[in-house]
């Protein structure tokens, strides 16, 4: 649609039009409608567009024809920068609109005005000045006629926002790509997060095979020399090179991950581009801010870590075993009755079942 704010004018139909020109005006108006319908959907027509179609013979006749179409709800009147313009409605929509009551039509126009932003029912009432009962009744009937729909706002979950049926709610009220129906789409987030872990991992980590630097086995002469020296025992202890350099134990054939040398850490922008290009999120475009939200959440999750203010990197665990700390690894640290435990009594170190289990001994039976 036109980028301008559309303002509807529910002009009361001048009653005497048909008396002057009769049926021909009606059929010529249909002709105008058909000509307009040939244009791409959602085109905005200005007066000169309509006159260029050369359906009407004079400007006055054109205005009359437009008025007829507006009355039949086939054209939706709008203004753009003070100039009148119109948009086409389908015949079925027009039919539905024609059957509305005045109140319903009034509400419909207000809802239409807000387009994707939607309008809160209370705001609607304030604008239209109808009673609550009328409002509720009309909104119900409009919904049943498939003209409008309601969505819950993400910002204010208690508010019901109304917008036209065929429109997608704007991100302000429906939330970003991660949300659906006002709630977080955990499945989608899960998938996206996993993709991100893989993407960032590829960018920041590299896999090193255990055999990448096999200096020890090839260096036979040195080994022989060392052995010789050992046998002769002539060396001063101070000068002797250490028999073997310390290196971490590695299984042959395995590989481990290390951070890349001079890695380019991904940012929200590059990650968003990656995800959009992948095209796994159908019909949804991930903006940079959406991606930042996801990545920040993953940092909180411990699945990524921040390399600096704007870029992210993978979390590397050099050791596989997870140790917490001395306190929680002991039974007391995660004991459900820790706060009730006292020196003597039913719950105490002497009677503790958790200690008994942990140590493989027995406690005093209570």
């Amino acid at each position, binding site marked *: 649609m036109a980028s301008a704010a559309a303002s509807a004018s529910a002009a009361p139909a001048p009653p005497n039009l048909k008396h002057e020109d009769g049926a021909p005006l009606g059929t010529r108006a249909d002709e105008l409608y058909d000509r307009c319908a040939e244009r791409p959907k959602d085109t905005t027509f200005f007066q000169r567009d309509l006159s260029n179609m050369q359906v009407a013979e004079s400007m006055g006749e054109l205005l009359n024809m437009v008025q007829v179409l507006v009355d039949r709800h086939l054209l939706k009147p709008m203004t753009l920068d003070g100039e009148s313009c119109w948009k086409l409605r389908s015949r079925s929509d027009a039919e539905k609109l024609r059957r509305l009551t005045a109140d319903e039509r009034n509400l419909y126009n207000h809802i239409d005005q807000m387009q994707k932003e939607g309008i809160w029912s209370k705001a609607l009432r304030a604008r239209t000045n109808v009673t609550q009962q009328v409002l509720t009744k009309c909104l119900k009937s409009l919904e049943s006629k498939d003209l409008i729909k309601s969505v819950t706002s993400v910002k204010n979950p208690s508010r019901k926002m109304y917008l036209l049926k065929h429109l997608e709610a704007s991100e302000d009220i429906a939330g970003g790509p991660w949300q659906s129906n006002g709630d*977080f789409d955990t499945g989608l*987030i899960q998938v996206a997060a996993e993709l991100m872990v893989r993407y960032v991992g590829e960018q920041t980590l590299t896999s090193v095979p255990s055999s990448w630097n096999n200096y020890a086995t090839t260096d036979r002469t040195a080994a022989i020399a060392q052995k010789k020296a050992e046998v002769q025992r002539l060396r001063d202890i101070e000068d002797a090179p250490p028999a073997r350099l310390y290196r971490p134990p590695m299984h042959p054939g395995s590989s481990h991950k290390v951070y890349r040398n001079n890695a380019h850490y991904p940012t929200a922008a590059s990650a968003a581009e990656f995800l959009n290009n992948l095209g796994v999120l159908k019909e949804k475009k991930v903006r940079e801010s959406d991606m930042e939200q996801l990545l920040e959440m993953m940092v909180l999750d411990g699945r990524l870590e921040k390399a600096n203010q704007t870029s992210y990197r993978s979390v590397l665990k050099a050791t596989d075993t997870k140790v917490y700390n001395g306190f929680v690894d002991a039974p007391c640290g995660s004991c459900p009755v820790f706060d009730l435990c006292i020196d003597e009594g039913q719950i105490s170190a002497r009677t503790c079942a958790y200690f008994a289990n942990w140590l493989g001994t027995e406690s005093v039976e209570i």
Partner: protein
Amino acid sequence: MSYTQRETPILAQLCTFLVEDVYGELAARVFSVLARFGRQRLVDILRLSYLNRRQIGAGLVILVQQHLVARSSTDTSPTFYAIDWQHSYALVRCGRIAKLVEERFGSQAANVVSNLLTLGHTRISDLKDAYFPPDTDSDADLDDGIVNGVGTKRMRNGEPVNGVNGKVNGTAPGTLVNGDGHSNGVDSAHSNGTAKEHDGSIDSVKDLYKIVHKLMKEGWVIKLDEAQYLSAGDYHELARQLAIAEKCGGGEPTGTKQNAEIEEATLRHKRRIRDAWLEVPQTLGGEHKTNGSAYEHANKRVKINGDNDWSRGAFQDEEELVIRINPEKIAVAMRTEQLVNLVEQRLGPITARIYRIMLRSLETHIPRCFDEWADPSPAGKENSPIVEDDPQLCIYPEHIANLTTHLDICEGLDPQGICQITGRSLVKDKENPADKVLSQPVDPSKLSYHERKMVVEKHIELLTHDPFHFATWSGRGTFRIDFEEIAKALIQHELENTVEARKGPTGVKLIRALRKKGKLDERQTCNAMMMSANDIRDMVNDLTVQGFVQTQEIPKVDRREAKHSLHLVWYDCQRAREKLLHDTYKGMVRIMQRLAFERERVQSLLAKAERSDVVGNEDKYLTADELDMLKKWKEVQEKLLLQLFREDDLVATLRDFVGPMVSV
């Protein structure tokens, strides 16, 4: 009272257990009186306990000797006794101290330190006598203040401390500083030392002095000073009096400006007195010419059987010096170990070892983790230019590189980086085409000086890029370590660990979200965590109950209806830190209690196994069942004690590495 001295009932309980475990029941009885009633005079202790004066005296001697009790020292008013919580708690670290020293300075130094720990503060000449016993047995002419509590204690560490069977001899508490550091019973320690498979024995007085000198230079051993006996309050008063004398010339301070000046001068005096303890006497080193004769003096001296009238050797002043372990240094070493462990978990063993070299190279110049009496930083600290780094605290990669010859420093890095440095390239492995290997292997021991430095710099780069910022670039190719920030991050890390173990990843996520964003209402929390409110609500409740997060209700309407109020959740690291510290103390108490209970269960067996005729001949005198039970008991004991030490690690992280934090 200072932050680190803050007393809690649970800490009192823990310390009483520790004292009982190490120094026996008598000392623990006296200790518990002081723990329950606070600062007391001798007569009050007498009144409050069911002990007689002589018993209390004996108990106090041990406590004072080990610096577990502080005492006021004014001549006019009666002496007050109060517990020094820091030192009392430090009993749990005895074994660890010896271990830390051994890793750094070898087993001989560890041996000396163990003895110092056992004896409390000691005159150097007495230490010497202990190692090289004089001809006569000096036990015979000692007074009767012998306390046997120490005799049967169990040393709770992996490496038994020598001198366990020694008796701590003391005279009346009033004259302690002047010379009843005379301790004995280490003669058995000496023979123990030689019998051990690891060579911790010391062959000559020269070596002993060398070791003591080295330890003092490194700041592990310090001089004893009268002021060390003062409790925090008395010490403050002492420094304040000095400050007033300096600023007002004896008069009373007037006006806020002068008060502020005195505050500042008080802190300065506190630091000055404390720093004087660290000074090292010059002549103690091994370079002295009359070493041989000093040994002879030692023999002669005891024959004279007195303190002061023996022929003076060149060591005279130093031999009279009374030394003790520096408790603050222990925390520095523990911090090093913990940081290295963390790096090993995050970046791998080689980088961790290089980090260890870096940290240990700094340790000499770091007497303590944080200065309790630092000048308050000026208000606009952020705006002021960054202070020039102390060059002693800078790390030069080339120095570090020289110390890495025993490591395969190429490991743990991206091969691409190694290629750049050594001019190799990566090619497909012949045996396994999927792997890329170096075109020509690099032997780390044959790297040139320059290459080695570059490789080490790559490791340091890993350290700087880590979110913990284990190292920070500080210009001109040097690095420094911002210990304060790391220590804070370490506290947060432990808190997160605790929450994760108890509540799983969601709990950690919540804590992190709140820490990052501050106070949040429910919807904001959901947005930050990208989860629905239902999943979060229970977690908030649980963590609130456990004291990790706080909630707040702000009414929006006059009637303060809950429905209309804002409900905020927030996380205060400081509160969580204190809560966890308290819980950890409690956990340690439970372990000690359980240990006592387990011991009780096998009491009769232990009594038999500890009989002098059975020790060493267990197989001969104990039945198979008994041996089994004994083995089982040892396992249980080891498990519990290991856990106790790990909890101590946590306490160190939470309490000793960084001063009080101001947060939220």
